[in-house]
């Protein structure tokens, strides 16, 4: 069977005009099965977000390619949607209008998209706020809108770029649980970039650990915890063991990165 996502030897170098070229990812190869929840962790600047942007179709690799259902990704497409770390809500649009965005850009008729957007707003529990503007919402609410906006076009693949990093710890825990419920129901393929080892371990089927820049896959760890995941699992010795395995792999890279950075500056 063809994997949902197949990234082969993806390499991308940024060439800013007035600075040295930086190779963000170098020979990244990864396969993700349909319906799988995969997290990517790695040191800062290892190209996690760059990889997501290539997946999204906003960046083109210099070498290698990513296939989605056997077809090469060459630009944004409706099978993929992103949830952004800084939310990326349009401040001049109400919650409802923000969620409608993707459908609007696809040319869906106004009443249909309103109906579908309302459905998603209900799913993320914001029905009472559909006419509010983003600045009137808390961080957690904003990211619910971000999630609803990504889901409304019914993408197969949900890309999440540190979606909960800007939230406080409790809101974050809550959002993780809700995300798992939504994922369980909607059966999306999720690629989830995070800095948090705990988050990666709790949410994922597999955790991809990336090397320091230029990033590539260093190790892939299968998380054997049963589904559905329960919050209490985080307190179990097994969970701690998973965390410490991820941590020990990651630590080597952090040391590399700090050393590398020191040499560069």
């Amino acid at each position: 069977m063809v994997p949902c996502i197949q990234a082969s030897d993806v390499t991308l170098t940024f060439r800013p005009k007035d600075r040295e070229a930086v190779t963000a990812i170098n020979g990244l190869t990864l396969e993700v099965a349909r319906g799988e929840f995969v997290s990517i962790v790695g040191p800062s600047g290892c190209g996690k977000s760059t990889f997501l942007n290539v997946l999204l179709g906003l960046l083109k690799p210099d070498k290698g390619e990513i296939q989605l259902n056997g077809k090469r990704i060459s630009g944004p497409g409706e099978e993929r949607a992103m949830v952004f770390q800084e939310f990326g809500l349009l401040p001049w649009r109400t919650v409802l209008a923000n969620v409608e965005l993707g459908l609007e850009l696809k040319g869906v008729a106004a009443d249909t998209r309103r109906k579908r957007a309302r459905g998603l707003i209900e799913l993320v529990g914001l029905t009472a706020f559909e006419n509010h503007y983003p600045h009137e919402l808390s961080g957690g609410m904003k990211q619910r809108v971000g999630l609803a906006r990504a889901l409304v076009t019914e993408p197969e693949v949900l890309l999440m770029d540190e979606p909960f990093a800007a939230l406080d710890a409790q809101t974050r825990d809550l959002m993780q649980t809700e995300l798992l419920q939504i994922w369980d129901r909607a059966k999306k393929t999720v690629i989830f970039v995070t800095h948090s080892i705990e988050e990666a371990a709790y949410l994922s089927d597999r955790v991809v650990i990336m090397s320091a820049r230029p990033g590539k896959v260093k190790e892939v760890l299968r998380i054997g915890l049963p589904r559905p995941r329960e919050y209490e699992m985080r307190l179990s010795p097994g969970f701690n063991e998973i965390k410490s395995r991820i941590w020990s792999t990651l630590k080597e890279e952090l040391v590399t990165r700090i050393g590398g950075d020191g040499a560069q500056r």
Partner: protein
Amino acid sequence: MALRDRYYEHQRPILGTVSVIGFFLLWEWLLTSVVTVDPFFLTQPSKVAAAAKELFLGGAIWQDLAVSSKAFLWGFSAAVIVGIPTGVFMGWRRRAEYTLDPFFTALYASPLVALAPLLIIIFGVGLTGKVVLVFLLAVFPFIFNAFAGVKSTDRLLVNVVRSFGGKEKDIYWKVILPSILPYMVAGARIAIGRGIVGIIVGEFYAASEGIGFAISRFGDTYRLPEMFAAILVLMILAVVFTEGLRKLENVLAPWKIGQEAR
């Protein structure tokens, strides 16, 4: 206590009104009871008010106002229609920026009213010359503010629209235009002031009617109360325009109101 609370609630309009009225009273009092100045040089508010009443009731000023407003509105509208797209284009296309920026910067910095005599030569004494002058003065605030607005547009939002399949045109309409709206209002404020200068200078130079012409005619004939009355009309118009703009912004950009309060 209740009275005190109500005062604090409306402190701003109360103090503003008191200070304006106080200013005129002080002026009146100084010129009638304290110093005696030759009325040839200075006049007092009561006489200006009487002159204003005469001008409006007599109907003489209406014609001048209509003439000046027409030139202003044509020139200002042209500035909006030309300035905003030009500024947006410059902000979004680097080559356009590099090509156009030297000219626009030089023109914006120069006292364009100096061109008034030339424009009168080219377009004659009449509506066209004034419209062109107003346009030239008012267009640059729109160009540069639209440009600055585009430059400050959040790249993340552009990427969001792109990621959902948005095309160039969607980025213009759904991200850039709403982003630059507050910049446009700020630009319009500056443009109003500059446009009024254009009208007045144009009419000082060569005209047979209009507010600027009226001011210069009253000045030439030493009719100070009438002259002050005409200047006052201009000031009131400028304030009304600027305040109207602020109201318009609140209607067009309701998301800004809450943000500013924070």
